[in-house]
């Protein structure tokens, strides 16, 4: 049923897009129709695939590193009160900084390669993952912790067996947000300075008025971002069978 809903929504959106092209008679270098975009996608499959692989690698690496860093920070803040007092204000301030404004600096420091784009993705997802995981860890039922203490559990055993699984529903919300925003971080990094990736291809195609190719790259990015979101959503649903209320309503 969910798949059917997605297909219907996509069909309606594509229909609206085609209708705008027909009614407004927009030239293809301003807004190409869906047909032209599909042709551009087919004609440039190899080109788009090579750039897409690069961007996907950046996104996945950023997501993995950002999640590890976020979960580690949340664990450190939960475990050590002084770390909490020092890290929490830094986290809040980091959220107030426009991360996109840091992109030129990251390119300057880390170069035109993959590093600066991965760093952008990491920066953009670090806060939602840390905040969500910390919130989940902090609200672990104190009765479970008491019970574990009477059972002679070590702190690390309590974290592994109780605190982390209990924080999973909250962490899942953070991961869903991370999956949605990680592609933005990677592409913005590519726009600022790169020689590879879908963001670079879009800029390049735009400069040469190849708007259909630009749309084809955009479409590829959108499909990957949606697939990433749903994969994480599915994984969370699998891990959270015991916690149905956190399941995505999508």
């Amino acid at each position, binding site marked *: 049923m969910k798949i059917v809903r997605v297909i219907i929504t996509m069909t309606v959106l594509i229909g609206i897009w085609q209708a705008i092209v027909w009614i407004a008679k927009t030239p293809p270098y301003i807004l190409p129709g869906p047909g032209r975009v599909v042709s551009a996608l087919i004609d440039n499959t190899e080109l788009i695939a090579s750039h897409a692989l690069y961007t996907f690698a950046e996104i996945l690496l950023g997501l993995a590193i950002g999640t590890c860093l976020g979960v580690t920070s949340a664990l450190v803040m939960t475990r050590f009160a002084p770390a909490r007092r020092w890290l929490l204000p830094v986290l809040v301030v980091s959220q107030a900084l426009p991360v996109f404004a840091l992109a030129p600096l990251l390119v300057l420091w880390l170069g035109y390669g993959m590093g600066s784009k991965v760093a952008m993705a990491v920066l953009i997802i670090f806060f939602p993952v840390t905040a969500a995981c910390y919130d989940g860890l902090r609200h672990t039922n104190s009765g479970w912790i*008491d019970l574990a*203490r*009477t059972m002679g559990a070590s702190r690390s055993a309590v974290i592994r067996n109780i605190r982390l699984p209990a924080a*999973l529903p909250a962490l899942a919300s953070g991961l869903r947000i991370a999956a949605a925003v990680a592609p933005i971080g990677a592409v913005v990094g590519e726009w600022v300075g790169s020689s590879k990736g879908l963001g670079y291809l879009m800029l390049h195609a735009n400069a040469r008025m190849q708007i259909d190719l630009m749309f084809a790259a955009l479409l590829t990015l959108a499909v990957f971002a949606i697939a990433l979101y749903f994969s994480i959503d599915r994984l969370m649903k699998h891990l959270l069978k015991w916690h149905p209320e956190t399941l995505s309503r999508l």
Partner: protein
Amino acid sequence: MPLSVHIKNASLEFDGRLLFDNLDFELSGGQWTCLLGASGVGKTTLIKLIADLVDNAQARAEITTSDGEPLKERVAWMAQQDLLLPWLDVLDNVMLGARLRGNVDDSCRDRAMALIEKVGLADSERALPDSLSGGMRQRAALARTLMEDRPVTLMDEPFAQVDAITRHSLQELSAELLAGKTTLLVTHDPLEALRVGHVLYVLNGRPARVSEAIRPPGNPVRTPQAVSATNLHSDLLATLAGEQLTG
């Protein structure tokens, strides 16, 4: 030889208010001791103090045991909530202590299965807690408590959240399976205390004091008729009600 425990000079100050002071009572070896008290008198804090679960400088107690060894890590804990971990099935919940200590093996699994069967959950070992009724969840919690096989069991109103019929059968089951273990049951229900307790103490007053030991005639588990025959129910109720009125 079952372990007996002596609690001496137990006191707790909370928000500048003395909840209880200089409490002195004993958990007789191999017997059920029931500590009765109205809500808010500090029963839960007291039992947590015995279990070494209170991280509060204002709470203290001298706890000595008949073998002279510390009580810490020799108690099994059963709280008001079943405290089953919702992501683990019944079997894994029962083996929680072993999981936390990293010593799950086949013999541990066999013991857990035998206990699950004993508490009447034989076909539910793979069920998640959410799919169980309140009574079944408490049975699983009881199996988890028994799995720890500790000389002392501390129970904090474990049957308060189930219906009367289920409570009745759980009291019987617990008394049967914990027979011979030193057990402290904290409860606000005089009937429950009279049904399962060898020794009863009443906690009342501000700050709370513990009464002299009350030893109802006959052996637990007492039938409702035997409980009535003790003629203690109304006295206990009056003591508890007095506490609420003066509080």
